[in-house]
């Protein structure tokens, strides 16, 4: 692989790793592993850990995919590999 292609792929992997870390934290850490301690904090009438497990994680997933799509488009342009 030549070096711009290598740099593009590296930047891609960096973005995806970053987003997957957030993906892991909101679901497995906030929603499952730390659910008990987080439940002592409340968001209105919902315990925070419970909220992350049944609402917050889903909203975060949604944001993550759109951030990824926008980020990758920018990356495509920067490296001149965009489609139009």
């Amino acid at each position, binding site marked *: 692989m030549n070096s711009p292609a290598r740099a593009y792929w590296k930047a891609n992997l960096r973005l995806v790793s970053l*987003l997957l870390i957030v993906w892991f934290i909101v679901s497995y850490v906030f929603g499952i592993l730390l*659910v008990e301690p987080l439940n002592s904090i409340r968001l209105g*009438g919902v315990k925070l850990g*419970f909220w992350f497990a*049944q609402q917050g994680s889903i909203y975060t997933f949604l944001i993550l*995919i*759109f951030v990824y*799509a926008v980020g*990758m488009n920018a990356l495509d342009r920067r490296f001149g590999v965009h489609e139009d």
Partner: protein
Amino acid sequence: MELQTLIYLVVGASFALYIGIAIWARAASTGEFYVAGKGVHPVANGMATAADWMSAASFISMAGLIAFTGYDASVYLMGWTGGYVLLAMLLAPYLRKFGKFTVPEFIGERYYSQTARLVAVVCLIAASITYVIGQMKGVGVAFGRFLEVEFETGVLVGMGIVFIYAVMGGMKGITYTQIAQYCVLIFAYTVPAVFISLQLTGTPIPQLGLGSELAGNGTYMLDKLDRIITELGFAAYTEQKGSTLNLSLLTLSLMIGTAGLPHVIIRFFTVPKVRDARYSAGWALLFIAILYTTAPAVGSMARLNLTEMVQTGPVGTPEANLRYAERPQWFRTWETTGLLEFQDKNGDGRIQYYNDANPDFAERARQWGWEGNELVTVDRDIMVLANPEIAGLPDWVIALVAAGGLAAALSTAAGLLLAISSAISHDLLKGVLMPDIPEKRELLAGRLSMFGAIVLAGYLGMNPPGFAAEVVALAFGLAASSIFPALMLGIFHKRMNRAGAVAGMLAGLGSTLVYIFVYKGWLFLPGTNNLPNTAEYWLLGIQPESFGAVGALINFTVALAVARITAAPPEHIQHLVEDIRVPRAAQPGGTG
């Protein structure tokens, strides 16, 4: 107008719409039949993916599952949505760039091996057939409950409808009917939810109602629910019941399985560009999230409504239990279906609904003269099906829920049937048996295998092989342990070769099947299980449904180890991998 007539009218109108779309969107080429000519707008594809994904189980059963398991049901909510993050970032754009028609086709070319392609075809067909049985059953059940026709007749009518638009239009027809089906099902799901939330909390948005105070009460809805059900001996709604390891693994298995299910992946082959595939996954999750974030509100509010309907005052005072003679009309309606059943165990004419399996609560119950839980059957599905009646909504909403349930089952069935028929006509017939088949004949073969798949699915729906409830876990296990790792390694590990991929798929698949069969019976035959399917016998407390993630880990490990000690893939395959990693080859004059 009578309710039955109204239901026939609404369901009939929705079917007429689907058939109308089918006539408009006929497929003229294999490209249109398999991938809708790659011309679907990303938002439209997102909507179609949402309908494809959300099955009868999501629409009818999930809220009830949440209602009766509370926090622990979060694994389904996170698992079935978090998979889209993996799909969007690790698979969809690259497979779209590859630009072919089926999932086994990618595996066959990437691993330069007909064997790998055949293994993928087998996994795909096994996963999809098991899944489609449940959909056909869902169609029959929905017809039976709402239209009062025989179960078999219901399945036959469902087969007929799917036949018309799937055989005629292929992926193109399916895509546009799925869009219509999404609109029907999401409207049918949210309207009763909005009204229930309004009645209980005064908030029209169910997602906010979940965290709101009860109207005119000052107590938060979930606190009230936790209190009343613990007073009746149940575990608190918001409390964790299962083990942390098992909950995490089940979530992971569902996520990886979701990302690896072929009928979902092929939806991303239908958009024009790589960029569209990325956005489209986001749109799909947005449309799915509307239902999946509403479901926790529906579940908790329905549980509260049901409990408070029976337990009208302080627990333990005799007058606080509803007199059976005074039960509301919807209770009577659902009693006739057998989904709700009362037995007056202590003969006091009142309904006691509590957890009689809780030993700490038994003594108190005995002192009050309670002799066991008297709501002996409360089917989970009631939580969605009876919602409009519980909330006192007009008849047209009930008719809408019927149409919504059917839309959810039909749209998923059609997507699965397309995945099966394209694996047969494109991967088996054109790919392996008759590589020189002309396009016209392949299109005909596609339609014929679709027809065969519909007949098989209908037959299995009518004569479920006894393990229908178990098999959805199998579908996710197969997808997670075999398909997902093979696809991901094919994109992210250039050095991955034929030997590694095939060994990995077989190891992942084999270990998952063995683990499921040991507890659930070999090929699900009753009595052939080696160990009882209970928590104390599970390896490290991992239930069979959660094993897909472990199977995937085994697949990754074996594949990487074998690839290390065998020859690197040929030059042109390494170029193929480089090529799918970029949306378009870099231009010399690019702004780079």
